[in-house]
């Protein structure tokens, strides 16, 4: 086994142990439910196969340590937690097991899932230093050197650069999984009537319609989590470099934020096999109080993932406030920092609301507390307020860092200062602040107090103003520049165009009376794919192409990069224009089958094909990414001829970042001014920087 490629080793153990887990699950299922009631694609065999397979894959790749140990502990923790509940139920004289095919009762799944997530953290080893502190044992100030080579990415590392890459790769993995789900349900949507997600289907205790709903809902949430992780990845990697810090303010918390996302994702995915849920990513009650156990796993997964973003935001803000290089005053910070801070402020505060709203549904399901149960005097619309109080601002969490990346790269490739730096910086804060008070624009048709719709219409439209400032400033930055278009710049331009289309469809959603038509149609689906791709996906790719040489000392392949861009951008426009057009013709959201009388078959087919083309372009990217790590063209100098500090030292970045600390002596984007640059290195070891 030793000299086989680790990836193959992983896949082999995935298959072997996945099958083993499946067998065990099948056996249990037969024992508990009887052979007749056990379906081959039933929840128990699948959940065992999923858990075993995951853990075994990593076992094959790196052996028993890091993630593997975490996942093993998660499995054990889940079982222990679950059986505690089973025991308590048995002691209370309640039915200990579940008769509906899920083996364990709902409470056991939930508690088991929670204990499992915590066990993961102990198993993977992020908590060990804190445990030492709690016992009064000092840990070394300098964090320990990671092992060399790729294996360090699979275990806990305290180095912000390693964590950044861990985040980015996880995000790419999630985009692939979410994208795969999208391709599955897009295929079903290519024609009216049900083709393969039929009512007769029975996978994971779901018929085709339920599975379709599960897939769209998970697509939505997995993509959103992938965005949050992708952003965390970029900011983690880049921001300490931009401000000249050794690391983030709290390296252990940083590792914690990353690793907690892993069990969260496992929980999220387990909802697919535990009966799924049919509510969309919004999980509105009362529907979500009726869905199968999968619903609880979804809520729990999102809740745990929420902690990852909250703690990440705390870390980021503290780092920026406390650890900037000498001379880096507020108005001389790189612009990406402004937007990341604005986004972090939102994450820090609003995330608690979605956590709470989900918890309340969980409690309602577990204990019958009737928060959202109208029959008991609860209020289903309260959930929507709590939910959107987070979920609207979070769309600006998705885009603000992305817009920051645009503003960061545009001057480099236009060879011109960022036009109106202060206005652009303030517009980020403006968007974030106004973003707090617009949430009810998702609820214009919800039956909330009618008069509230007017103030929310005003506030929503107001967001366009600071966003507009960014667009105009970008255009003015390019005007009379000396523009070159390597791959990162292409993605920046793509981002601007795509986000612009998405943004322009915003105001028509915001005026109440037109929204009463557009709400819950594919127009909205088109709107947000545009804003999300333009505000996150395109800038994310731009950032990866741009900072790749910094991380690896090699460039990504330009030709493949261009293929990626020129394939993705047009197909993406076709995808979203197709969505919007279908929406205008009356296509509702979240339906697997549409009325043939609407004559939507043609447009849906085109949309599906476009979706596949986008997927192919992403596969090209993923190939390029892993290929270039080893085989890319060497690029150790200032590849993009940037003023930014991280490019003034050779790539790849050494473990402890800068050897010498620097002082800020100019403006970050003063290209063409002929001054002495943005930063000056001073002869002082970086650890004593001030």
């Amino acid at each position, binding site marked *: 086994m030793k000299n086989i490629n680790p990836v193959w080793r992983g896949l082999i153990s995935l298959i072997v142990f996945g099958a083993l887990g499946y067998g065990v699950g099948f056996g249990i299922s037969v024992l508990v439910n009887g052979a007749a009631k056990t379906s081959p694609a039933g929840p128990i065999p699948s959940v065992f196969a999923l858990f075993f397979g995951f853990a075994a894959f990593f076992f094959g790749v790196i052996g028993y340590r890091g993630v593997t140990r975490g996942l093993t502990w998660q499995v054990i923790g889940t079982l222990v937690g679950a059986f505690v509940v089973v025991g308590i139920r048995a002691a209370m004289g309640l039915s200990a097991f579940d008769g509906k095919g899920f083996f364990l009762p709902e409470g056991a799944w939930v508690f088991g899932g929670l204990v499992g997530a915590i066990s993961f953290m102990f198993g993977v080893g992020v908590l060990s230093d804190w445990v030492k502190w709690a016992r*009064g044992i000092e840990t070394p100030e300098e964090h320990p050197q990671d092992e060399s080579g790729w294996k360090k990415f699979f275990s806990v590392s305290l180095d912000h650069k390693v964590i950044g890459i861990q985040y980015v790769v996880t995000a790419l993995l999630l985009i692939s999984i979410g994208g795969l789900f999208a391709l599955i349900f897009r295929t079903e949507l290519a024609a009216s009537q049900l083709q393969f997600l039929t009512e007769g289907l029975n996978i994971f205790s779901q018929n085709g319609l339920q599975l379709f709903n599960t897939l769209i809902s998970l697509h939505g949430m997995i993509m959103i989590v992938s965005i949050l992780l992708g952003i965390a990845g970029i900011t983690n990697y880049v921001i300490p470099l931009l401000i000249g810090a050794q690391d983030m303010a709290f390296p252990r918390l940083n590792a914690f934020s990353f690793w907690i996302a892993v069990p969260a994702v496992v929980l999220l995915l387990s909802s697919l096999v535990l009966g799924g849920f049919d509510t969309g990513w919004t999980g509105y009650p009362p529907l979500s109080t009726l869905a199968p156990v999968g619903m609880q796993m979804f809520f729990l997964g999102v809740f745990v993932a929420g902690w990852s973003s909250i703690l990440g935001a705390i*870390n980021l803000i503290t780092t920026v*406030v406390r650890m900037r290089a000498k001379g880096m005053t507020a108005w001389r910070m790189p612009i990406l920092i402004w937007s990341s801070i604005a986004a972090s402020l939102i994450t820090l505060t609003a995330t608690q609301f979605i956590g709470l709203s989900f918890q*309340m549904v969980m409690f309602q399901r577990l204990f019958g507390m009737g928060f959202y149960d109208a029959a008991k005097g609860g209020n289903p619309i*309260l959930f929507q307020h*709590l939910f959107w109080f987070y979920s609207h601002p979070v769309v600006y969490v998705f885009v603000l860092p992305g817009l920051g990346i645009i503003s960061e790269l545009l001057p480099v490739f236009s060879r011109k200062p960022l036009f109106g730096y202060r206005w652009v910086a303030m517009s980020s804060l403006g968007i974030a602040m106004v973003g707090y008070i617009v949430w009810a624009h998702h609820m214009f048709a919800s039956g909330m107090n009618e008069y509230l719709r007017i103030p929310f219409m005003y506030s929503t439209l107001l967001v366009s103003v600071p966003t507009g400032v960014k667009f105009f400033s970008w255009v003015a930055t390019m005007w009379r520049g000396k523009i070159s278009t390597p791959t990162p710049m292409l993605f920046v331009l793509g981002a601007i165009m795509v986000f612009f289309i998405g943004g322009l469809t915003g105001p028509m959603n915001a005026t109440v009376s037109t929204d009463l038509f557009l709400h819950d149609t594919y127009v909205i689906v088109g709107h947000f794919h545009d804003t999300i791709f333009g505000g996150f996906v395109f800038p994310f790719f731009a950032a990866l192409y741009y900072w790749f040489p910094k991380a690896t000392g090699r460039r990504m392949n330009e030709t493949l990069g261009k293929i990626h861009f020129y394939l993705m951008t047009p197909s993406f426009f076709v995808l979203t224009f197709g969505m919007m057009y279908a929406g205008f013709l009356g296509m509702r959201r979240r339906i697997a089958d549409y009325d043939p009388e609407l004559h939507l078959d043609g447009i849906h087919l085109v949309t599906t094909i476009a979706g596949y083309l986008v997927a192919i372009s992403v596969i090209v990217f993923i190939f390029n990414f892993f290929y270039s790590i080893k085989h890319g063209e060497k690029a150790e100098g200032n590849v993009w001829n940037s003023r930014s500090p991280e490019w003034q030292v050779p790539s790849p970045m050494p473990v402890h970042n800068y050897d010498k600390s620097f002082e800020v002596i100019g403006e970050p984007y003063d290209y063409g001014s002929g001054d002495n640059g943005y930063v000056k290195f001073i002869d002082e070891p970086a650890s004593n920087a*001030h």
Partner: protein
Amino acid sequence: MAHTQDKSSALSQGVIIFVYLAVLTIIEYFVALTFDATGLLIVIAIIKAALVMYYYMHVYKLNSDEGADNRNSYAYKAATDRLGLWLFLLSDTFVFAGLMVSRMNLLGLTRPHLNQALGLFVTAVLLVSSFFMNRGETAMKFGDVKGFMKNTAVTFVLGLAFLLGVVFVEWRMAAAEGLTASFGNPATGPVGGVFYLMTGMHAFHVLTGLIFLAVVWNNARKGIYTAEKHWGVEAATVYWHFVDLVWIFFYPALYLIGKVVQ
């Protein structure tokens, strides 16, 4: 400024603040019993919160530039940690704010029927515990580890009493009042849900606070804190007062404002 006092004046400041808080709580209680003045109750709660934040939790320290001349110094690092802690508390505030919003939405200006004497009693217990916590921290600030341990032990016992009081007495009495409705018996709707979730979430924070106190107490016993270096103690203190701060708002929200419903 408060942080350049000598020990006895620091301690007596703690006493004075405690007296203010106690008097305000009593006023609050009688106001609520005699007439319907939600606005006044909110004002009192805010004043109490401000007193706790300033004198017990030392928010102003966020603004200090201790250790700025050497970024590797303990003081500079502690100040960084302090910012992190406060950001965490800010975030946590939003959980409680969300609960408050839900409470207002679901119950409006009504409140569950609860035992007033018990409510006032647990509130007093928590307040007194904050007072001892403050004494403990002050002792540590002047290097008095023994004093710290003594006061923290008292705090711990009071906190434990609060926790047990809520879970084993208050919840049982509430259940007797019919609030268990939520556990399977669909009679009183979300009232029980709101009550259990608010007190439960707060109790959970008390529990974590107790664990935190136990940890710093044990570390103090091992002698790893000094007058200059005791960030762990400060963090535990601030966290403990934060739990008290939340109760300053939850107590009137659950026990005092609005009309009783049954």
